[in-house]
């Protein structure tokens, strides 16, 4: 790909044999990048406000198929922004061999834009028999942990760029597992060479719906492995908080972000807004609030 201006963050060294490569929050001259999830209805606003957006996170599946305008749109974005692909189809938790054709298509996309990392979710989205198409929680057993780590290893052998996995929202839990969510998450991070995309709103949403303390959860997570943070806002559906990515970030999530940033320094923080788009000034004000919190935590 010629003519593309690469704006790569410095890649972090990865853990070997379970040793954490990065210790507790360390002074780092590199400021935390503040970005936005790319959505097509926001395309023109994004281009018109380029100076206020450090990077774009794109949904890989929207650019992985042979529809001409998609490829050119992605390359055009990559010439103007640091672009980080965020997938939903790796399904690292599925207890069957990784879909190598999907990984090959993802690898091709990643090769085009050369991001500092790519991300997906700690979940499953399909099994050979059925396609759930959405992020589904894992039954957190030792066997599932082995499956996830094996799948991550396979993916990393096929795509050399660092893989970062996100914690998901879920509205029901699967009883009789071996590990709590935090235990499972930390074990994955320890055993595999992937870092964490900490979705703070997902932690908050789950804490509401499943009645646990979000702060205690965050205190227990291996925050030293947080590469990127997601922020978003959801909607209430009766007594459940749904992770719709269609509202401003709730006050409690801002508080949790401050707590996380007091304990670690990720490389990037991005806002997700998928629908019911407000005036773009509202989105920009959310990004600005992220920057203020980053600055207040002396990470700016």
């Amino acid at each position, binding site marked *: 790909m010629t003519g593309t201006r690469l704006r790569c963050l410095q890649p972090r060294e990865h853990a070997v044999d379970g040793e954490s490569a990065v210790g507790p929050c360390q002074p780092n001259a590199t400021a935390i990048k503040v970005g936005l999830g790319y959505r097509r209805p926001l395309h023109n606003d994004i281009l018109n406000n380029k100076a206020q957006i450090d990077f774009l996170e794109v949904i890989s599946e929207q650019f992985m198929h042979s529809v001409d305008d998609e490829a050119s749109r992605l390359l055009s974005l990559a010439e103007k922004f640091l672009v980080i692909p965020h997938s939903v189809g790796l399904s690292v938790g599925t207890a069957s061999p990784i879909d190598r054709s999907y990984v090959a298509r993802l690898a091709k996309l990643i090769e085009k834009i050369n991001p500092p990392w790519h991300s997906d979710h700690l979940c499953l989205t399909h099994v050979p028999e059925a396609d759930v198409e959405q992020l589904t929680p894992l039954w957190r057993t030792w066997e599932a942990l082995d499956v996830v780590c094996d799948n991550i290893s396979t993916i990393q052998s096929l795509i050399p760029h660092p893989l970062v996995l996100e914690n998901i929202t879920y509205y029901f839990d699967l009883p009789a597992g071996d590990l709590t969510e935090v235990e499972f998450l930390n074990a994955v991070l320890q055993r595999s060479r992937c870092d964490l995309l900490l979705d703070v709103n997902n932690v908050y949403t789950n804490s509401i719906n499943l009645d646990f303390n979000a702060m205690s959860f965050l205190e227990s997570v291996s925050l030293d492995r947080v590469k990127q943070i997601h922020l978003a806002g959801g909607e209430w559906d009766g007594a*459940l908080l749904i992770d719709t990515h269609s509202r401003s970030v709730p006050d409690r999530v801002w508080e949790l972000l401050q707590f996380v940033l007091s304990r670690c320094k990720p490389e990037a923080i991005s806002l997700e807004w998928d629908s019911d788009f407000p005036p773009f000034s509202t989105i920009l004000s959310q990004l600005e609030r992220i920057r203020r919190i980053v600055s207040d935590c002396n990470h700016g």
Partner: protein
Amino acid sequence: MSLLAFQSVLSRILVDANFRDQFIRCPQVACEEYRLSATEFKSLSGIDKARLALHSRNLLIGRIHLALNALPLTRELAETYIARLAEPYARFAVPRPGAAAPAYREGLRFCDFLLSGAAADVGLPEFVNDIVRFDRSTLLLVYSASALRDAQAAAQVTEAFCCDSTTVLVPGRHVVTLQFVSDFREALITRTSADFPVPRPVPLNLVLMRRPDTPDVRIVVINDSVLELINRFDGTRSCRDVVSSFSGGCVNHAIHAVAKLYELGLFLRRAEPASKGDDAGADCRSRPPCNLRGGW
């Protein structure tokens, strides 16, 4: 003990309404073929049923929205019926993994659902099948790498006839003003000739009908003035001469549309007698025969 069996049961519970009902009624029978361990069965049986139902419904609504985003004309008709479509769609078929784009797969699945008659009781307009067939065919072309040449042709033709507000006449039946979803339309616009003017939002006098089993696009003329224009493209005069000399009752962009088709070599197909089950052609028989050049 098989984790994959566990995950398969969980996935089916989430996306297969019939299986989910069976699991809730009698989980042992539903899971029998999967040979789950006692611990696996205990875990699945212990899932909060109300939460499971809510999660499944959210998944389903998400899938319908994903499909409708890929089917802009169908979306105009069906969007207000989503709540009523959800239940029959959940029972239509179990979604299977595939290599194609999720929007494409879900869009095709949703088209097949509507065309199967499974939504007959929902109350959609009676011409919905014509619209669904058109969307389905266009979806196939847009996402089919092997048919890229046809996709380009289809995009050019579609651009010629669709604008911000499009009047589509389903032959002999209804007139519906539809709005193209801008994202979908943008995907088509990038393939068209740069010098083709974007039509103003005024009603058109042509309808684009696609046969469900072929990539061919048929243009059915429903206005005598436009028909008269088209008949002037007999190869004896230049396109510009024809357009400049025409003083019929067509709206401006219809003239340009026809002229562009002629320039692009996308000839207009003569309206053919309808074959059995061919709804798109049924009303052509009532129209005067078109003096059109044939073939794509």
